């Protein structure tokens, strides 16, 4: 288990200092596939480098299974990294790359040989042991990088956007491959990505980051269906964010109203919001299109665009208050038509700003 406690990281000094991470606290459970997700510049790679030991925290502490590791050199941490650029040693064979960690740890030759063999089998590159690194394809280099980082049996494996250099088809394959490796080895994986679909597909838990802070931590389902903030809702999937009026709270639910409509009881990210204007997340796949005059219609507007994508169509509806909403439908309405929008109110979610 990794505990990140009140970690702040600043680069530079004085006036020109840049704060990359601001008072981050995070717990990464043992044996989990944990993803740090966020746009570029959010600090996710910096956090990874702090866990690896390539950077030291300006403030705060990092512990691994209770032992403080935040200020150890990288070679003294039982943590290995798969680099974005792989960083395979070009002057060594595949086998020596994989055995490098154990060689540095001065393990017996027989053990090193056995582990190299086992690891290359694990990533299905058994017959490539004596090849030179530059004779491998990008996908194969990726697997060697994985085998090399797993060979010393680290407590934690850090992966820095390892799939970003691969083409789409290879990337899909490697996603399930990574899941399989994590299951088979039981090692904690900390995975950095800016790709929300990758994060949703692979993770046990996701920490969504922006501007040097963790915005939300949860399972992919929690993150997707119950985003706490506008940022998270916006970053994960094609979410519509519409305006509503918060009337008050009923227990842990919120009472809201669209325009002058009837009050609705919906989920909320927080019960400490002030009554008044709030934002509500609305997933496109939970919306139904009805006639404008229908009682069930919660929102009303005009169709401004529609895109056919095979399994259905995506319609863009401009609401009367000017907000554009994406809707998935089987048969689109004509452009310019007035429509009403209805949705399962249990899927509505009031957001913090």
């Amino acid at each position, binding site marked *: 288990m990794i505990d990140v406690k009140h970690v702040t990281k600043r680069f530079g000094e004085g006036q020109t200092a840049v704060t990359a991470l601001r008072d981050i606290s995070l717990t990464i459970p043992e044996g989990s596939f944990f993803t740090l997700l966020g746009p570029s510049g959010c600090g996710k790679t910096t956090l990874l480098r702090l866990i*690896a*030991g*390539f950077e030291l925290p300006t403030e705060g502490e990092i512990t691994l299974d209770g032992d403080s590791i935040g200020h150890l*050199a*990288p*070679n003294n941490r039982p*943590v*290995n*990294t798969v*680099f974005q*650029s792989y*960083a395979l*040693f*070009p*002057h060594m064979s595949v086998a020596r790359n994989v055995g*490098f*960690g154990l060689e*540095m*740890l001065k393990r017996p030759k027989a053990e090193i040989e056995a582990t190299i063999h086992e690891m290359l089998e694990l990533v299905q590159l058994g017959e490539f042991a004596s090849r030179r690194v530059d004779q491998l394809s990008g996908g194969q280099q990726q697997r060697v990088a994985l085998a*090399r*980082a797993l060979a*010393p049996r680290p407590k934690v494996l850090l992966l820095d956007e390892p799939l970003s250099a691969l083409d789409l088809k290879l990337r899909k394959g490697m996603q399930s491959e990574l899941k399989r490796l994590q299951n088979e080895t039981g090692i904690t994986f900390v995975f950095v990505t800016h790709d929300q679909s990758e994060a949703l597909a692979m993770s046990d838990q996701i920490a969504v980051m922006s501007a040097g802070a963790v915005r939300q931590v949860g399972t992919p389902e929690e993150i997707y269906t119950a985003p706490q903030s506008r940022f998270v809702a916006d970053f994960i999937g094609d979410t519509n964010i519409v305006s509503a009026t918060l009337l008050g709270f009923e227990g842990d639910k919120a009472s809201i109203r669209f325009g002058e409509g009837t009050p609705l009881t919906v989920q909320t990210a927080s019960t400490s919001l002030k009554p008044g204007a709030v934002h509500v997340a609305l997933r496109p796949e939970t919306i139904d299109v009805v006639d404008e005059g229908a009682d069930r219609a919660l929102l009303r507007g005009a169709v401004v665009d529609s895109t056919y994508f095979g399994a259905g169509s995506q319609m863009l509806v401009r609401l009367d208050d000017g907000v554009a909403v994406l809707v998935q439908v089987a048969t689109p309405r004509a452009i310019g038509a007035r429509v009403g929008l209805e949705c399962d109110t249990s899927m509505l979610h009031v957001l913090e700003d």
Partner: protein
Amino acid sequence: MTKFLSLFRRSTGSRELRRQPLFTGMSWLVLVFLYAPIAVLVVFSFNDNRSVVRWTEFSLRWYAAALENDDIRRSAMISIQVALTATIFSTVIATMAALATTRGGVYRGRAAAIALINQPLMIPEIVTAIATLAFFSILRQLTGVTGIGWLILAHTVFCVPFAYMPIRARLSDMSVTYEAAAADLYASPWQAFRHVTLPLLMPGVMAGAMLAFVVSLDDVIITLLVAGPGETTLPIYILGQIRRGVTPEVNAVSTILIGLTVAMVTLTFFLQRKQK
């Protein structure tokens, strides 16, 4: 005149430039003046005649004579001894300097340090030579130490910037991620250097060492002023000989030196190409 100027105005692309008759003619002229004397020297070193202007017959007699000449053999040995030792010391120093200026992080005075290391290349050699002569005389007097060590020290110093350039270039091109990966895989800083940085840096180190060797081998000015009695290097010996006129023997020795230099430079070129 206007026609001459418009000729340049039109020649924006390199292809156009190459087609200008002036350009081609100038290139040939330069090449001829550069290499013709060397070619003549090489050709006449194989001439079976004492004259260096009249060709008679092919012969290796001047090479045999040169190799049997005790003075040439002695000065060649001194040259090689000085060049090899200076190369080893200067390459080690240059490697450490290159590491400090590319891997030591950003610190105050780094740009100044790089400039200071490279500056000797810009200072006229005669100035360095006179300064070294004066400084070494003081040191010799103070310490009472004499011997070839001073000459080796002087060569080491002026070889450092030559060795430094290719090593630093190689290090700047090398991603620091390799060293990070080594540290991540439990290599101590020394192990990371020994197993990752140094092997990857080797083409640059070899190129630097060869440059240093060549520069030391044919140095005249500094050696002339710093070398003590009995420390005559090959270039100094040749210089002494040609005061009495160019002999075929000197041609033969010079040809050997040219061959050695060309071989070194070619090797350096291929080493630097390989690293790309």
